[in-house]
């Protein structure tokens, strides 16, 4: 690590996504960015700021507020030989494009018996925690992970924000990338020459013997924070970053559960019918005899996100809740 310190760079998650976009636009003429306010505005979250100047309005293409239209156009462009990166401002608006994502992108390869793959990348911001109330605070990535035919990514680290995009663009199938808006300002240290990363496997972000905390995206950051607190109490949590919600890399978390015998899933989505439910079920199926206690979950409260801060804070998984839950899981057993 120390000998590489000189070649490390500190940058934000936002910068990392922008670098990834710039990199992709430079590397491949077929790549273009399309979405609401990606050009002149610079991106709702300033992710694409500056790209219009560098690549022009054809390749950094502002769209009307026509989510179904421009997502479908992205699918068509992908079918037509391009490598579109379609930015849907937030997951909330992606609901207007569900027909295109679910009925078209996810099914074309199959309906055509393997003839037409759709190499599109659809990025969107996700998550709550910014007092944006019910219609702008959804975490529906787990919902998308229900759909066969698409790949669902949730970069939680600067490294993944930088590296997942290119790999996604090289993938022949539709890839959805969910960027938690709360992470854009997060800083991280990555190598100057940080490049593509895999989009297939979960990662153990922190090793521990006492409990496996399975999470992704912003909840992963909270889980890691909780793990540090717990560590001071002698409880060592193993924290797993799912990274890819579909297809799920269950091997990584099943192996971890086999080591720790306890599992907690932290997910900003609602618990009913959620990715956390899916992971819990996979643990039952694949590691039942390793379990030394029930699989636990920390999810968002089942309410549309309230505006008031104290209510929103209470609705979301938080570090102290993770700490308490792990204490309960490990403590009562200790």
């Amino acid at each position, binding site marked *: 690590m120390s000998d590489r310190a000189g070649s490390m760079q500190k940058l934000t998650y936002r910068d990392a996504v922008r670098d990834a976009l710039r990199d992709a636009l430079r590397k491949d003429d077929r790549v273009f960015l399309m979405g609401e306010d990606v050009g002149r505005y610079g991106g709702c979250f300033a992710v694409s700021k500056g790209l219009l100047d560098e690549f022009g309005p054809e390749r950094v293409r502002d769209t009307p507020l026509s989510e179904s239209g421009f997502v479908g156009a992205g699918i068509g462009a992908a079918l*037509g030989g391009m490598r579109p990166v379609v930015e849907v401002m937030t997951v909330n608006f992606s609901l207007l494009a569900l027909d295109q994502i679910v009925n078209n992108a996810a099914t074309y390869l199959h*309906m055509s018996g393997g003839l037409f793959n759709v190499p599109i990348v659809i990025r969107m911001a996700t998550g709550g925690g910014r007092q944006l109330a019910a219609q702008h605070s959804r975490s529906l990535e787990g919902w998308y992970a229900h759909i066969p035919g698409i790949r669902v990514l949730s970069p939680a680290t600067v490294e993944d924000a930088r590296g997942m995009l290119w790999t996604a663009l*090289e993938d022949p199938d539709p890839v959805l990338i969910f960027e938690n808006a709360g992470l854009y300002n997060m800083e991280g240290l990555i190598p100057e020459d940080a490049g593509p990363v895999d989009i297939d496997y979960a990662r153990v972000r922190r090793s521990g013997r006492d409990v496996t905390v399975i999470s992704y995206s912003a909840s992963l950051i909270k889980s890691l924070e909780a793990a540090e607190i717990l560590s001071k109490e002698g409880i060592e949590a193993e924290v797993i970053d799912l990274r890819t919600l579909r297809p799920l890399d269950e091997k990584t978390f099943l192996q971890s559960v086999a080591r720790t015998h306890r599992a907690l899933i932290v997910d900003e989505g609602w618990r009913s019918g959620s990715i956390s439910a899916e992971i819990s079920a996979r643990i039952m199926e694949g590691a039942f005899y390793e379990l030394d206690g029930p699989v636990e979950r920390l999810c968002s409260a089942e309410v549309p996100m309230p505006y008031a801060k104290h209510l929103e804070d209470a609705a979301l998984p938080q570090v102290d809740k993770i700490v308490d839950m792990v204490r309960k899981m490990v403590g009562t057993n200790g």
Partner: protein
Amino acid sequence: MKTKSRGKKKPAALDRDHALHLLRSMIRIRSLEDKCAELYSAMKIRGFLHLYDGEEAVAVGVLEALTPEDAIVATYREHGHALIRGVSAGCILAEMYGKQEGCSRGRGGSMHLFDDRRRFYGGNAIVGGGLPIAVGLALADKMQNHSRVTCCFFGDGAVAEGEFHESMNLASLWKLPVLFVCENNLYAMGTALRYSESVTELTRKAAGYDVTAEAVDGMDVLAVEAAAKNAAAAVRAGEGPCFLECRTYRFRAHSMFDPELYRAKAEVEEWKKRCPIETFAQKLKNEGLLAEGDREAIEREAAREISEAVAFAEACTWEPLEDLTRFVMSERRTA
């Protein structure tokens, strides 16, 4: 308003071979559809089955305007389009049989015929869903400097969908080479246009997006062909999208069977008098282009094609169950 801005060019003098070709194409479609109905009743074909009887002039006329490089995005009533585009009747029927030699390996069925070599992009069964895809295909062509046309078929029901409006807007905004062909058969399933649209004159909707729009008699193959050629030429020339409304009628039920409570038998009979095949054949006869025995020969030839297609479909094989989860994600990971 750009509606009919270009005005109709008078169709060139009809050449006998071309005339017989158009007639043959329509009869091939009709024969295929008749056989489909029969096979459906015999339970060889299942699922939804939407037949094109009565609307043949639209597919035949429009496809005359396309080159092999152009792309087609069609609807779930697309057997005729696929057939005329060059997908063999055997592969189409095998698909409807659910056999792996079908054009979509039996994964799609009647509503999802695909053919990559013929740039036939389905077989889209969500009303309106194909329009944005056509926009995207055209966008790709434009960005890659291909002078190709993407021809997008949809029904009158689709104009009520947001995707229709979004697509008109995007295509017009970005001047994309899309030929939008509305097959207006007067009913969205069972709901007549007048019960669902505040403005039933569809060209006005396209015109609202500054898209060149024209309505044509969809029962007249020559009129459709002429209009489509005009429109396609404009699109190919980079003038942006065109909208062509073909006023037509389906003779059969929406899907295989429906009680047809929404329309009078007399209305159907009235439209049948305008059958695109019969009227065109009569015209050719009148003009001396259809000789004695020509029609019969065409019918025979079509019947043979279809019966061979049935034999082919019958002989085709079922995809092994082990393959069930194939074609969900690509088998090669690099695009």
